[in-house]
Structure formats: structure tokens, C-alpha cells
């Protein structure tokens, strides 16, 4: 191996890095039922985009033969099934994160399990995703898990979904089958108010419409999966929301300095602006925005900074800064959709710990308003929630929560910080 003879010139490398430095990031989650072909599809995406290292391809080839999953060549699914148990059982149990980039964008994939018993892993994967790929087997159409995943993805605030109708090779690339699935799916998602849904017929195994556009489906003109991923707008990067900043840490290295460290959850802030610290309702002015790289004039959503204030007001970890004209709610009561992830059923009236931004408080579920049947989104009467059930609940907290309603166009969610940087609360 003599890489240096092939290596690009320093100037070419510098140009590559300059371009890469400007790139943005798209995080997406892939979900679907077991055997719909998630692992195969994502493996194919990585292989065809050239994102798998050569020595790993060697190991994959050996593993493919060992598992006997495929006749010749690389079985793309084996890139993903990481844990020993998963390899033995041939299924995905936990979220696997995968990283790749093209000339246009960087990507983080969270590949999540299909089994209902691993719903909490699926929710983990979806919570940080900008976009979700929901996979359907063309022969089977929509399954209960497809709807369940779509519902969870929408609850966690993912605003862009691609419905990938996979294994089109198994149905002779039949347009009518594709249409039927899309129609059913759009009826279902209409109620969820997911702002963007794209529909895509493909074959993960054969790579049709994955990286290159397929010639097998002349009835469908349009971008491949990778093209869609490369060009769609990254949701959640806008700075238009009201300014929200949860104090994560009081930075007090010596008597002369007192700063409040945290990440701007939404909007922007500028030196000289008035803020109010909640829930205490103490007012002050931003005196400086401190960072290791020098003082800043402004900060925007997504930046981790330290603010100093003009006045000595009482602020501690968990407090929220906002502009006085853009106040969030401050309340001990909230209405929320809960996804129940514990083996012990929810007990109304019992005390739970609730974590919201940097704050812990004791919470109690006052009442379960209804449970949602994920098959048709209908509301069912319920006194409690069992593992993996989803329901609308009244939450009462000992200390006030500072929160905004989820997305302005979607009143199913509450207790979330702001549209910019999605967040929520978790019962521990």
C-alpha cells in the first residue's frame, strides 16, 4: 500500500475541506416492519454512495457467505446488524447509527428496529432525526408497524417523511400496486399533519431508485432516494422562532465572572437585548455572549454559548431565558401525548420524575384522556397506558414547566421547547 503516491495535492485537499466545511447535516431515521428491507436498503445506499471502507467490504463478503443470506457478492444488510445477538437472530434490536457523506451533504442515519417490543429504541432514533424514511414491502402494503412508526415519528416532531415502497422487483415494478399503497398512506397521514411526504418506489436489493434513477419504472420520473436526501431542505434549522435558551450550567470560575451556559433552543439573541428569566420572572439585559473563540455579537438556534447579564439576578440551572414580548407558557399543568416505554403500566396519581430541559421535577399523571389506536388513530377510552401504548394525558408538576406548544400547526404535542430545536420531556 503506498497511498501517498495517489494522494491529492495539499491544495486539492484544502479545497475539498473548504467545501466540506460549508456542508450541512441531514439526520434521518429508517423504519419499517421486520423484513421490509431496511438493512438492505441502507446498506445499498452506503455501498452505492461509496461510503463503506474496503476492509469492511472484505469482512462483509466473508460474513455474507457464512450467513448464507445471498448467493454471491455482498449482502448489503450485513453492514448493519452489529450486535452478536442480532447477527445470530438475523434481526435488528437496537438503533444503529451510520455516517456517510456525498459531495453535497453529510448524513447521519439511525436505522431502527421493527419489532414492537423495541419501540423505545425506535423513538430514540426518531427523536434526533430531521427526516424519516418509512419502508413498506410492496407485496405486503401498509402494516400495523408502518402506521405505528409513522405516528411515533410525527409525535417526535419529524417534519419530513419519505414513504419508500421497497421490493418493487418482486411485483414486476407494477405502478398500480405502488399507487394503491401511496393512496392508503396519504389517507392515514392526512390526520397527522406531517408537512412533507414524498413517495418513492424502489428496490433496495437491486439498487433501483436508490442512488441511480431506475429505468425499470418509466411511469415514475423523478429523483432517486439519494437525490431526495441530498436536496431537501433541512427542517429545524430556521431561526424564525421565538428566542428560547435553557440555562444548563452557571459558569462562575471566579468572583468577577458569572455566565449562563446553554444551547440556544430557538431563535436568535443579540448583545443588548432584554431577556426575562423564567419561571422567576427576573429581567435583565444580555451584556455579552462569551465563547472560547471570542465574544460574539449574536447567537442563533443550535449554538452552545455562555451569556452574561447586566444585572445580578437569581438564575439557576433549568431556568429559561426568553424575550419579554415572546413569553412561553409557565404552568404546572400540561396536556401531552405520552409514549409509554416502561414494562410497568402508567399509574395515574403516582409520582414520577420528569426531566425537561435541564430541570427535574416531580410529576403526576392526573388523568389519561384517551389512548390512541395506532391502526386507525381512533381514540379509545383508557385508565392507564401499557408498554408501547400512546395516549393523551394531563400532567401535573410540582414545579412550573416553561414550555411552548409543539408545532404551531399540530396541537397533538405539548411540553416541547420550541419549533427550532425539538425537545420534550421525559418521565424517568
Amino acid at each position, binding site marked *: *500500500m*503506498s*497511498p*501517498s503516491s495517489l*494522494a*491529492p*495535492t*495539499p491544495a486539492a*485537499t*484544502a479545497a*475539498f475541506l473548504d467545501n*466540506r*466545511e460549508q456542508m*450541512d*447535516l441531514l439526520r434521518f431515521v429508517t423504519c419499517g416492519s421486520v423484513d421490509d428491507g431496511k438493512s438492505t436498503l441502507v446498506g445499498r445506499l452506503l455501498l452505492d454512495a461509496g461510503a463503506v*471502507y474496503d*476492509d*469492511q467490504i472484505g*469482512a462483509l463478503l466473508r*460474513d455474507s457467505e457464512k450467513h448464507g443470506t445471498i448467493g454471491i457478492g455482498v449482502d448489503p444488510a450485513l453492514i448493519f446488524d*452489529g*450486535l452478536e*445477538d442480532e447477527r445470530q437472530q438475523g434481526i435488528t434490536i437496537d*438503533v*444503529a*447509527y451510520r*455516517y456517510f*457523506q456525498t459531495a453535497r451533504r453529510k448524513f*447521519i442515519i439511525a436505522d431502527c428496529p421493527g419489532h414492537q417490543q423495541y419501540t423505545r*429504541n425506535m*423513538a*430514540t432514533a426518531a*427523536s434526533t432525526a430531521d427526516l424519516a424514511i418509512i419502508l413498506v414491502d410492496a407485496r405486503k402494503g401498509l402494516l400495523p408497524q408502518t402506521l405505528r412508526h409513522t405516528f411515533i415519528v410525527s409525535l*417526535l416532531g419529524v417534519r419530513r417523511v419519505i414513504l419508500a415502497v421497497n421490493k418493487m422487483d418482486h411485483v414486476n415494478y407494477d405502478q398500480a400496486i405502488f399507487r394503491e399503497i401511496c393512496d392508503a398512506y396519504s389517507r392515514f397521514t392526512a390526520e397527522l399533519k406531517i408537512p412533507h411526504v414524498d413517495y418513492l418506489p424502489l428496490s433496495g436489493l437491486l439498487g433501483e431508485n436508490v442512488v441511480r434513477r431506475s429505468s425499470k419504472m418509466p411511469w415514475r420520473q423523478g429523483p432517486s432516494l439519494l437525490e431526495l436526501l441530498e436536496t431537501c431542505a433541512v427542517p429545524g*434549522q*430556521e431561526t424564525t422562532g421565538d428566542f428560547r435558551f435553557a440555562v*444548563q450550567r452557571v*459558569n*462562575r470560575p471566579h468572583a468577577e465572572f458569572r*455566565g449562563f451556559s446553554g444551547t440556544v433552543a430557538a431563535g*436568535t439573541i*443579540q448583545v*443588548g*437585548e*432584554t431577556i426575562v428569566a423564567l419561571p422567576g420572572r427576573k429581567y435583565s*439585559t444580555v451584556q455579552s455572549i462569551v*465563547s472560547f473563540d471570542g465574544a460574539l455579537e*449574536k447567537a*442563533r438556534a*443550535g*449554538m*452552545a454559548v455562555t451569556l452574561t447579564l447586566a*444585572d445580578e439576578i437569581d438564575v439557576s440551572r433549568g431556568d429559561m431565558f426568553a*424575550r*419579554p*414580548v415572546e413569553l412561553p407558557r409557565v404552568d404546572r399543568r400540561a396536556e401531552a401525548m405520552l409514549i409509554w416505554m416502561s414494562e410497568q403500566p402508567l399509574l395515574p396519581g403516582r409520582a414520577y420524575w420528569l*426531566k425537561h430541559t435541564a430541570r427535574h421535577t416531580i410529576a403526576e399523571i392526573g388523568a389519561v384522556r384517551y389512548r390512541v389506536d395506532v391502526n386507525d388513530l381512533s381514540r379509545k377510552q383508557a385508565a392507564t397506558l401499557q408498554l408501547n401504548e400512546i395516549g393523551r394525558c394531563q400532567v401535573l408538576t410540582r414545579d412550573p414547566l416553561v414550555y411552548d406548544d409543539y408545532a404551531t400547526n399540530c396541537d397533538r404535542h405539548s411540553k416541547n421547547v420550541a419549533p427550532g430545536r425539538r*425537545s*420534550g420531556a421525559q418521565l*424517568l
Partner: protein
Amino acid sequence: MHHSNSSRARVLPASSPSALAPLSHLRRLEAESIHILREVSEAFENPVMLFSVGKDSCVMLHLARKAFFPGSIPFPLLHIDSTWEFRELIEFRESYVKGELGLNVIAYVSDEGVRDGVNPFDYSSQVYTDVMRTRPLKEALTKYRFDVAIGGGRRDEEKSRAKERIFSFRDQQHRWDPKNQRPELWDLYNTWVHRGQSMRAFPLSNWTELDVWQYIHLEKIPLAPLYFAAPRPVVERDGDMIMVDDERMRLREGEEAQTRVVRFRTLGCYPVTGAVTSEATTVLDIVGELLTTRFSERQGRAVDRDESAAMERKKRDGYF
């Protein structure tokens, strides 16, 4: 409006959103890591940062300096020194990290291993790693009562790590149970542990090797010189080039040290860490190489090649 009088000040017009460009992927990763480090410092009584002195550790250290600025890093660094480290690595730890940055580095050595003369020549890689790395790590965590250890592991490194949470708890024996991972939603981290359990936090989880190098380039982060090509004495052994770093290196029949221009892609114990032929003397050169070689990183670490599930098993046993 209920402005308190004392805080009434000039109110500037809200800044125009377009004045601040969207964050690039690196700045998004940086902010996520800083958020995680701050969370660790607040949610635990007695954190420690595991510092291997390698490039990922150095990036993590740099992020910690940013996270707590203008304050200093509110926890010590822990280096599990196997006693078979590269000399240049120890020198970098002493002169730069302890000296120039003035940081508190605990260098912890396995007394048992030194007493029994455990070395990578006479012992299998499994026993050697266990005695000189895994056990002293557990010992040190117990001895100093650290309740969380911050590690530089990245999910792109290897398959089992790809499935690990950012905050990942360990049982009493410091073992990881991949089937018992907690939900981890948004940027809300469940930092609570039961008695006897401990926590690992991985602020670099979402960084790739290229991200790390690009960040080193962008931020001009100093590294141990071993990453850069230089003439070094090496022997060829089982397909690897092993550096003869000191007189303890045991040469086999017919082996003879030759001076070659090489560098290291990862830094483990010198007798089991393979060098690569390279002329890369700058970070730019290294990135250039990365773009062309396409060999994934752990290739150079002989310990890891045993089998594909090796790392997962080691982690279940308590290896970091």
C-alpha cells in the same frame, strides 16, 4: 409589560435571521458535544475524562476547554498507562497537556500487571488488554469514586459502538448490556444511575474520522507527533510494521529494525500497534491520505482483529 426598573435598557430590534448563517455540520457536532460535556459536569458528582492521549482524546479535550470557558475544565483527566505506551505519547502528555495546558492528569498503572511482568509478548492480547487496560480502568474508577467516565468513542469506529447510547450505563462490574439500553430522546439525557452502576458518556458519538481530522485542521489542535510521518525504526511482523520504540521490544529470529518513514493512524501499545507507510507530515496530508486509502481506522490495531464481535465482547467485560 413588567420590566423591573433596574434592568430596563435599550432594546435593540430583533436581529435579522439572515444575519446568522445556518450551522455547518461541524458546528452542529461541536455544539452537541459541548452540550453533552456540560450536562456531565452538572449531572454527576465526580466526573472524569478518559484521556488516551490519542487524537480523539485531544479533540474531546479541546471541546471541554470550549464548554467551560472562561472557567477551567471541572474534572480531571485519567490516562490508563499500560506501561507499553509510545515514548512520544508520554512526552506529549507531560509537556503539552500537563505542562502547557496545566491540566490535572491522573496517570494510572496496573500494579498487579507490573508486579507480574505482564507484557504483550508473552501474553495473549486478551489477557494483556484485560490486565493492563481493562482492570486498571475499573480499579481507578472505583478507587477515585468517579461516577461517570467521559470517553472519546465514536459510533463510526466499529459495529457494536454504532449501537451505543451517548449516555451508557454500566453495571457493578462496569459491564455494558446491549440489550438493556435506555431510551435517549432528543437532547434529554437520563443521567441517573442506581447504586453501584456507573455511567459512560460519549460526547464524540456522532463524529466520524474525517470530522475529527477536519476539526483538528480547523481548530489547529496539537497532537502527539506519532500521527505524522517521520523516519522511525520498525520491524515487519505478521503483516504489520511495529515500531522498536525502546529496548524492551523483543525481536524474533531474523527480525531487524529498519528505518522507514511511517506514521500511526491510532495509538495503542507500541508493540501491538501497526504503522503505515506514509509521507504525511501535516494534517492536510493526512486528510489527503484518508481520502485515498479508504482503509478503516482500526485496521492498524492488532488487538482488534481477532474476530468481528471482539469489541462487543470486550465491552461487555468492561473494556471501555
